[in-house]
């Protein structure tokens, strides 16, 4: 049949009334189209024929009743009772089955997700290491390379009159780590600035004092930390809570204390049991408070740790305690990532050769526990660990502005980390990196771009250190300044307005400013009547532009 009205005829139900208009059309068409006429005739006759009932002559009911058991439904047969019961409870059963099915689906989803995220790990964290894809994955299952900036806040310490002088006389670091986070650290402007950077992560530096058990402000401090994590989360920025200053020895005090023999230095969490327990207690408190914090990437348990000498336990105690603190956190928070840093140095054992900073000569250790600068990881026996390392290669260049850098040498260092990570089971890596202002802005940019290219190539997450640091007459603005932004908080103490000019308040301050290179910085970036604008990008525009490009790159 070739007529285009074939379907119309075939779909026509003779018993259903169709519109007069359509019927008229079909009647007209049938008159002129033989094929459709034949089809209509055949179907009309067949349908009419099939519709007719055949005269029924015999009532089968009697025969049927003779062949059935009339008492079949009078007897309480178990299968009939069961069926009848099931029929009665069917509506409830249906709902229950549906609820069970939903429950099972959710359960399967949770288990499948947990299995996908980590073979031996169950949880609902926003960020996890995926062993199969060899990458960090976010809550949507997307692979993510953390790219961020470190917020060191003012965790390192402030000069406190009456206390700092005493510490200085004792040959210790006079800057006192704060027990309350200063209000200037993260202002509304800071959040806006960080949002504009394009980072997907921030390292949130903390010190032990902020969350120590005996700090009466620790509840307020944790509330503030929570609110900041939530704020960053709203900006789609993950937060890594990073312990920069632990109880006891820290990398911050280290430059001063390294000059002393080991037995006179402040002990570390690996050498002193009290410090160790304080360290554990602090993390347990933080983990308890943050275990359900959305947007929390995890906890970096200790910044730049040092292995004690063999006399004080050596590598064994180091590994035990690093694993110990991780285990304690895991008991509370099974989900969030634990960031574990490489050790950056080791105290020499008796008879070992080390470089003596006091004499600038190599020396055989005779029990004084000299510092050997070497790095490496210890394996943590828990899931969902990201191993972190500080990258300042070559050190003399990035810290002191001496010499230059070579891309191949930098790559060789990175490859060592990558090689270890591969041997350890393709574990993830995150790098903290930075370069001091002692190098020119263009020099810093080139080094940063080289490092970023390596991070990209080797799929290493990277946190640039730092976002913002205080500046002033008494702060080294060259070798000790690594931040993008400088904030001049002590202006009122150091600057006076005289003869329509801003001047240092006295010759002592002026001398300190000159010594630290702050006089030039002040004139160039902070010599303004608008004291509210105390934050400056300094000469970091090209550095920032380069970093922004890296941060925003997918």
């Amino acid at each position: 049949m070739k007529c285009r009205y074939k379907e119309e005829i075939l779909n026509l139900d003779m018993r259903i009334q169709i519109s007069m208009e359509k019927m008229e059309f079909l009647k007209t068409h049938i008159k002129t189209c033989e094929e459709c006429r034949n089809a209509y005739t055949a179907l009309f006759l067949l349908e009419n024929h099939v519709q007719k009932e055949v005269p029924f002559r015999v009532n089968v009911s009697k025969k049927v009743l003779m062949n059935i058991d009339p008492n079949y439904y009078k007897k309480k047969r178990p299968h009939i009772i069961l069926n009848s019961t099931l029929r009665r409870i069917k509506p409830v059963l249906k709902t229950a089955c549906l609820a069970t099915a939903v429950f099972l689906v959710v359960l399967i989803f949770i288990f499948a997700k947990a299995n996908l995220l980590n073979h031996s790990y169950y949880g609902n964290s926003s960020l996890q290491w995926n062993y199969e894809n060899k990458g960090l994955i976010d809550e949507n299952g997307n692979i993510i390379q953390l790219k961020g900036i470190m917020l060191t806040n003012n965790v390192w310490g402030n000069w406190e009159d009456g206390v700092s002088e005493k510490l200085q006389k004792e040959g210790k670091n006079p800057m006192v780590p704060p027990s309350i986070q200063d209000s200037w650290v993260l202002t509304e402007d800071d959040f806006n600035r960080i949002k504009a950077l394009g980072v997907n992560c921030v390292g949130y530096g903390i010190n032990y004092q902020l969350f120590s058990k005996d700090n009466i402000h620790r509840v307020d401090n944790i509330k503030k930390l929570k609110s900041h994590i939530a704020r960053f989360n709203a900006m789609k920025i993950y937060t890594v809570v990073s312990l920069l200053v632990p109880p006891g020895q820290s990398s911050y005090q280290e430059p001063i204390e390294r000059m002393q023999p080991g037995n006179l230095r402040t002990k570390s969490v690996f050498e002193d049991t009290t410090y160790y327990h304080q360290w554990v207690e602090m993390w347990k408190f933080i983990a308890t408070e943050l275990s359900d914090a959305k947007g929390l990437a995890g906890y970096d348990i200790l910044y730049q740790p040092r292995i004690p000498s063999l006399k004080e336990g050596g590598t064994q105690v180091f590994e035990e305690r690093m694993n110990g603190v991780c285990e304690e956190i895991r008991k509370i928070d099974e989900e969030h990532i634990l960031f574990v840093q490489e050790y950056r140095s080791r105290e020499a054992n008796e008879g070992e050769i080390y470089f003596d900073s006091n004499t600038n000569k190599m020396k055989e250790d005779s029990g004084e526990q000299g510092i050997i600068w070497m790095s490496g990881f210890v394996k943590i026996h828990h899931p969902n660990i990201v191993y972190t390392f500080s990258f300042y290669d070559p050190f003399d260049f990035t810290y002191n502005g001496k010499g230059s850098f070579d891309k191949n040498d930098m790559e060789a260092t990175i490859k060592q980390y990558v090689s270890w990570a591969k041997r350890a089971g393709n574990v993830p890596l995150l790098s903290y990196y930075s370069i001091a202002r002692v190098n020119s802005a263009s020099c810093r940019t080139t080094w940063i771009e080289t490092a970023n290219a390596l991070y990209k190539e080797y799929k290493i997450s990277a946190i640039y250190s730092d976002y913002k640091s205080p500046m002033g007459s008494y702060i080294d603005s060259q070798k000790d300044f690594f931040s993008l932004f400088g904030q001049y908080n002590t202006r009122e103490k150091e600057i006076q307005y005289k003869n329509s000019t801003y001047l240092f308040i006295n010759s002592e301050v002026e001398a300190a400013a000159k010594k630290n290179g702050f006089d030039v910085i002040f004139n160039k970036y902070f010599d303004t009547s608008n004291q509210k604008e105390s934050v400056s990008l300094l000469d970091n525009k090209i550095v920032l532009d380069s970093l922004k490009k890296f941060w925003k790159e997918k």
Partner: protein
Amino acid sequence: MLRPEQVYINKTLLGDIEAFECLINMHQGQLFSFIYKLTSSREDSEEILQDVFVKVYNNLFRYDNEYSFSTWIYRIAINTFKNAYKKKKNTPSLLFIEDFEREFAYISDTPEAAFEIKEFYNEIINLLNYLKEDEKIIFMLKYFKDFTYKEIGEVIGISSESAKMKVYRCKNTLVEKYNVLKKRGMV
């Protein structure tokens, strides 16, 4: 309020055999016609019909009243018919024109004309024999029982869309065969 049919079903399940007799009386006429159109044999149809009602009785406790009782009973009828003819290993012819002879007589005034018409109808009805067994069943369900495509789907165990497609194909086959006969001058 329950439909009378459901009342009889409930009473039967409580042991009221008279209620089941009512159910038989409600359905046997149509069901016989349906089976007869498949078997073309009164004896076979009566036998199958008895079997159908015995099965209906013995399995009534399984009937789910969320579905139409008609579709349930026709499903049993089709299965019983298929089993019966599987045993006989032949497919019945659908040539049962003799039952309509009286009707044809009213159509024409002359015996010659009546014969011609009878022959014509004979050929037309014979077209149904070109359909496969399942196709015949579907065609019957649609045009004898007037089931919707959804109900046909429930009886056969297919989707309503598939049922609609199958009915369309049946009609297409019938029309194609009719055209062939027409070209040969046989109708």
